[in-house]
């Protein structure tokens, strides 16, 4: 059963010279529940825009995004916020942790807008990710790899059905990148979450059984007028 189905979505932006640029046009895309897939594509090709539309952060100009049976594109902004909090985990290249909060608080904050605070589960996630002695450390007191693990714990905090990972290893050295990737995949498998990972790094992509070439998937026309 598909956890994510995309049909005929597009996204256009006004260009600085007064024209219109189409950055995204995807006819059809599907991801099965619990499946893991990598989207391969060069920087600036519109992968992040696609993830933002799936997460309900951006509205597409047309088409349909079905997430676990809910048509995301038909929801109001507030409803999309609720859906994002409860059904999605998002891991960013720059981690996007809040500097004033400890590792544990960052994970708890992820829960605050979704399922509600569950300190035990937050600690369990951090322990599972090898951060049992770093829970009260703030992001600047953690290594880059540790920060990425906190971001992963936060993404999994609300037991999402789908995890979106946008270049999650882009800021890590090769060794840490492999370690982080292993953790993301294993944690998603453990929790049963589907994983849609975006990367341009061949060393990452080669580890996935299902890799979709984004440049093939995206039929956007670029500058339209």
């Amino acid at each position, binding site marked *: 059963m598909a956890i994510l189905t995309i049909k005929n979505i597009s996204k256009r932006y006004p260009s600085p010279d007064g024209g219109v640029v189409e950055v995204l046009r995807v006819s059809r895309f599907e991801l099965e529940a619990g499946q893991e897939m990598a989207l391969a594509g060069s920087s600036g090709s519109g992968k*992040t*825009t696609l993830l*933002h539309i799936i*997460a309900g*952060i*951006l509205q597409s100009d047309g088409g349909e995004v079905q997430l676990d049976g809910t048509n995301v594109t038909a929801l109001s*902004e*507030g409803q999309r*916020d*609720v859906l*994002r*909090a*409860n059904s999605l985990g*998002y891991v*960013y*290249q*720059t981690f*996007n*942790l*809040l500097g*004033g*909060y400890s590792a544990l608080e960052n994970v708890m*904050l*992820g829960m*605050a*807008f*979704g399922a509600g*605070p569950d300190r035990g589960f937050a600690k369990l996630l951090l322990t599972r990710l090898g951060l049992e002695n770093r829970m009260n450390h703030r992001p600047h007191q953690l290594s880059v790899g540790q920060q990425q693990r906190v971001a992963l714990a*936060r993404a999994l905090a609300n037991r999402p059905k789908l995890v979106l990972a*946008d*270049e999650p290893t882009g800021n890590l050295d090769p060794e840490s990148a492999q370690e982080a990737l292993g953790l993301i995949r294993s944690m998603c498998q453990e929790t049963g979450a589907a994983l849609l990972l975006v990367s341009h790094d061949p060393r990452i992509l080669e580890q996935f059984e299902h890799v979709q070439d984004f440049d093939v998937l995206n039929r956007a026309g670029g500058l339209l007028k």
Partner: protein
Amino acid sequence: MNVPIGTMLRIALRSLRQHALSTTVTVASAALACGLVMAVFAVARQSTQAFQGGALGFDAVLGARGSSTQLVLNTVYHLETSPGNIPWLMYHEIAQDPRVDKAYPYVVGDNYRGFRIVGTEPELFEEYLVDGKSPFEFVGHGEIFDPNLRQAIVGSVVAQEAGLRRGSTFHPVHQLDGHGDHHHDEDYVVVGVLKATNAPVDRVIWVPMEGMWRMEGHYLRGMGEDYEAVPDEPIPDEHKEVSAVMLRLKQTSSGLALQNLYNREGKSATLAWPIAAEVQRLFQRLGWVNKVLTMVAYLVMIVAAGSLLASLYNTMNERRREFAILRSLGARRGTLLGIIVMESSLIATLGALVGFAVYYGILGAAAAVIRQETGVVMDLGAWHPALLWTPIGMVAVGAVAGCIPAIKAYSTDVARVLSESAA
């Protein structure tokens, strides 16, 4: 909003802690504004009440022709210079008037360490009711002065500040305000210290009237020409004079007839009646000072609101990423708006609470100055509606001031900010 108020409150408090310096400065400015507004209203009302309350015990004052306000200030509050003297015979005449219950003469002109010396009759201490209810009481063993001896009774503030106690002696100084340098040779001995009354009389040194007349260098002009008392010889009544006569009337309403008699027909003296109305007139004349202070206080409040707005607004740019992250985690726009308004309201609430300390500080300082200068004691614990509506107003103003930065947080473009931070 999709998040409990408690969580929003924690996020707001955390943010205030993260911006501790600007939070502290903004809280301080809100506290200053709140304290000032409360103090201006409370001091104005309390000083009016305290001064009007201090006038109780007498219905009217008879004194030299001139300003009735000056007369009241000089005799009831022991402030200002004396408008002049009236002949002893005039005192006698009004004391005999059937409409007058009691009449006490006052003679002024000297001081000791800035405390006014008032010559009067010993009956004042037996009959006069300080607050309209109870007579003077002495601290420990005290006695009323002998009208023929150089004895004195001192008020509680005089005893405390000039270090006078029963048995102490002192030399009066010519002039009312303590700036004179002519010391009289006469030695006065303190025979009693009065208990505190929280009224201007606490700052007075009472001596027999005869002593004032006979003080070396004092000239009596009851007949229009100078007369200096001769030792061991009685002073003829026609030479005697008094500075004022404090009156208690049998019926308060008879003051009008007496006022007509002295102020309009005779033109020889001034009768200030009713005393409370004189004080009220004085405060009305000083009303503009209060208005200016109120305007300044409101201005400070507006500046505090502006500083709150600016302080929060300035952090909005650096917090764009924080807002975008919260939104990406599922926080609604309304939640962010609520958090920022909560932050500004918290700052204003803290300011209002600290404002009470500022208020008591200002009130305490004002009360100390007023007591020092006039002997009038203000009640620091007295209730005033401003103590309720000012903090509420401050929090409301704070919440409104938070709306502009809150709208900025509300309109954060999540996708753009997150993309910028990834770039």
